[in-house]
């Protein structure tokens, strides 16, 4: 039987077979190869995200090869989720393979570092990482971002939920203490203040924390109406799993502001997800032509539904390839110019790459976990409650591309 796990194992082999001769930054002929570096964590705590991202990039390259009639390939660069390793891998790819276009960077810390390196070496770095700074105060001309940053994620989850749950007047937050978590918490506090919500407490935790029962006991003591979980990946799964085991689902509304989507729901199972609100960048059930085409392709190629890691990497790689073809070059400045201002049919509907800060303007989703008996198929974990676009202006975000 083919399942998601088997697909990942096959994908790892496929990825390693896609290494083609390098390109420099010069203009290339119509038959010349394009190679995209995929700097994502293939090992370490975020390896699952990286391995799906690799599959998405491979699919985008395969489709582009057919569409443009030229060799297009990807090269996985294992960042291990560490900024220093990520930068070293990008430098190696620039020096030894001549790769100038990069799609990846799942963690904000590694993405900020790789974006700076791309700028320094006339490359382009396109990411799905979340910290506001990437297209805010630390933005640069070579760094692009597809995902909605922390500001929009909170605006599209906390704000509609406050309206949806008028009796939820007291909220408690659990936050990872680094740039991404601080971003989410800051925007949440601003909305709480604006809406007259009492923020009854917050528990910070480290990036390596696995045991959340102590923080949950704090939350219980504060007796909130809603628990807002602001961490990411396996940490948010651990927090949610332990919160459900403490019976919190029956005592308060639980909100995971930045969920990974399908891969996270699969790991948690429907019983834990039921009744929980999730904020997400992507959902395979979104009714948009670009998404429907991706879902069809992924089912044909891998026999699974696309998740966020796969879909995000797919769209980044696809946009970079199209920009390189349009520019007739892999030169960073030319590709960046081709990307800037582009309007296209994306995975969430019409998407725009805003010229002022290289941020893609797209929807963010608020979803609610379904009961197992209501699931139409094994991946039908959630209903979309609302969707929308919320972005600070480049000036308000503090971005000056220079």
């Amino acid at each position, binding site marked *: 039987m083919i399942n998601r796990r088997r697909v990942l194992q096959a994908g790892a082999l496929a990825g390693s077979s896609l290494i083609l001769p390098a390109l420099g930054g010069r203009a290339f002929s119509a038959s010349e190869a394009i190679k995209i570096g995929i700097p994502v964590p293939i090992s370490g705590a975020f390896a699952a995200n990286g391995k799906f991202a690799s599959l998405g990039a491979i699919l985008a390259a395969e489709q582009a090869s057919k569409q443009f009639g030229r060799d297009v390939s990807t090269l996985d660069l294992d960042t291990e989720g560490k900024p220093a390793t990520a930068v070293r891998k990008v430098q190696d790819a620039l020096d030894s393979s001549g790769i100038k276009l990069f799609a990846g960077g799942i963690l904000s810390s590694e993405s900020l570092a790789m974006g700076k390196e791309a700028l320094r070496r006339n490359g382009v770095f396109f990411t799905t990482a979340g910290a506001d700074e990437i297209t805010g105060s630390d933005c640069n001309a070579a760094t692009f971002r597809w995902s909605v940053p922390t500001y929009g994620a909170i605006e599209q989850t906390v704000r509609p939920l406050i309206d949806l749950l008028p009796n939820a007047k007291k909220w408690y937050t659990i936050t990872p203490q680094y740039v991404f978590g601080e971003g989410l918490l800051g925007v949440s506090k601003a909305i709480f203040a604006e809406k007259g919500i009492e923020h009854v407490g917050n*528990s910070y935790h*480290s990036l390596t924390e696995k*045991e959340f*029962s*102590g923080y949950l*006991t704090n939350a219980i003591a504060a007796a909130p109406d809603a628990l807002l979980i602001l961490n990411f990946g396996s940490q948010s799964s651990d927090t949610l*799993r332990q919160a459900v085991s403490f*019976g919190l689902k029956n005592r308060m509304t639980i909100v995971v502001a930045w969920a990974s989507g399908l891969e996270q729901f699969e*790991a948690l199972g429907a019983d834990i997800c039921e009744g929980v609100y999730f904020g997400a960048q992507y959902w395979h059930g979104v009714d948009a032509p670009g998404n429907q085409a991706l879902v069809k392709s992924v089912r044909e190629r891998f026999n699974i539904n696309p998740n966020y890691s796969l879909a995000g990497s797919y769209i980044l790689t696809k946009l970079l390839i199209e920009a390189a073809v349009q520019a007739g070059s892999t030169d960073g400045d030319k590709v960046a110019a081709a990307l800037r201002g582009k309007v296209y049919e994306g995975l969430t509907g019409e998407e725009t790459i805003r010229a002022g800060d290289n941020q893609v303007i797209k929807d963010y989703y608020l979803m609610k976990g379904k009961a197992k008996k209501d699931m139409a198929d094994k991946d039908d974990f959630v209903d979309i409650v609302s969707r929308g676009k919320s972005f600070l202006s480049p000036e308000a975000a503090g971005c000056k591309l220079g």
Partner: protein
Amino acid sequence: MTYLFQILNGIGLGMLYFLLAVGLSVIFGLLQFVNFAHGAFYLLGAYFTYDLVERGVSFWVAMPVAAVLVTLIAAATEIVLLRRIYKLPHTFHILVTVGLALMIQELAIIAWGPLGGNVPAPEAFNGVIIIGNFVYPEYRLFVIVFTAILAGALWWVLEGTRVGAVVRAGSESAENTALLGYNTLRINSAVFGLGAGLAGLAGALAAPIRGVEPFMGLEALGIAFIVVVIGGMGSYTGALLAGILVGVTQSVMASLWPEGARLMIYLGMALVIVTMPRGLLGRA
């Protein structure tokens, strides 16, 4: 009241940490062997439980079966590989067992994939106990009671039986134990297997609390070493005391200074290393 629950929660955590660490401590005590693959055996115990439960096997069957499977795998590994390096310096122990841990981790990814999974708590302990405004999962209470009984049974085996006496004698002097006619090679394999099996059992018990994911062994290894260093290498009661101390510290600090919860554990370990290099109850 909050602190009372944090202490209760800490004891629950501590009992799991004890179970995880005691095998590492006993293995070091008997074999003077530094086992960096200990966390990987914890991982295996969790994944075997996950796999069996996914196949419809009851958790009550899956948990002991997983522990026994880990025990057998560890004993076989000791016989085939590890006993050949006992006499080498500790750096070789570290090199070989880190390699072994990485192999087990990657095999887990091949077998079960890079995504994690969930193990539901058994039906009998799936609820919560409510006291005033506070709640506590029944399964965590079960873990406290079960581990306490197991700790007592282990202590009795080690301190009150002939088998325990031989193991303790082996840890004092393997040569003299051999001269008394005991097969020390067999004792070593059994102790290594049982030590790793306890880690496997800890993994099986932790699976409904933490779920399973391929990198869970690394965190477990870190905690196990902290507990063993604080309690004293080779000390059974030291591991119990340190496990509870670490669990309670971690839990209470979540109320007092949440962002420093982890830091305090490491500071505590550093303090013990500086002031009591053999640990709280370590032997000279």
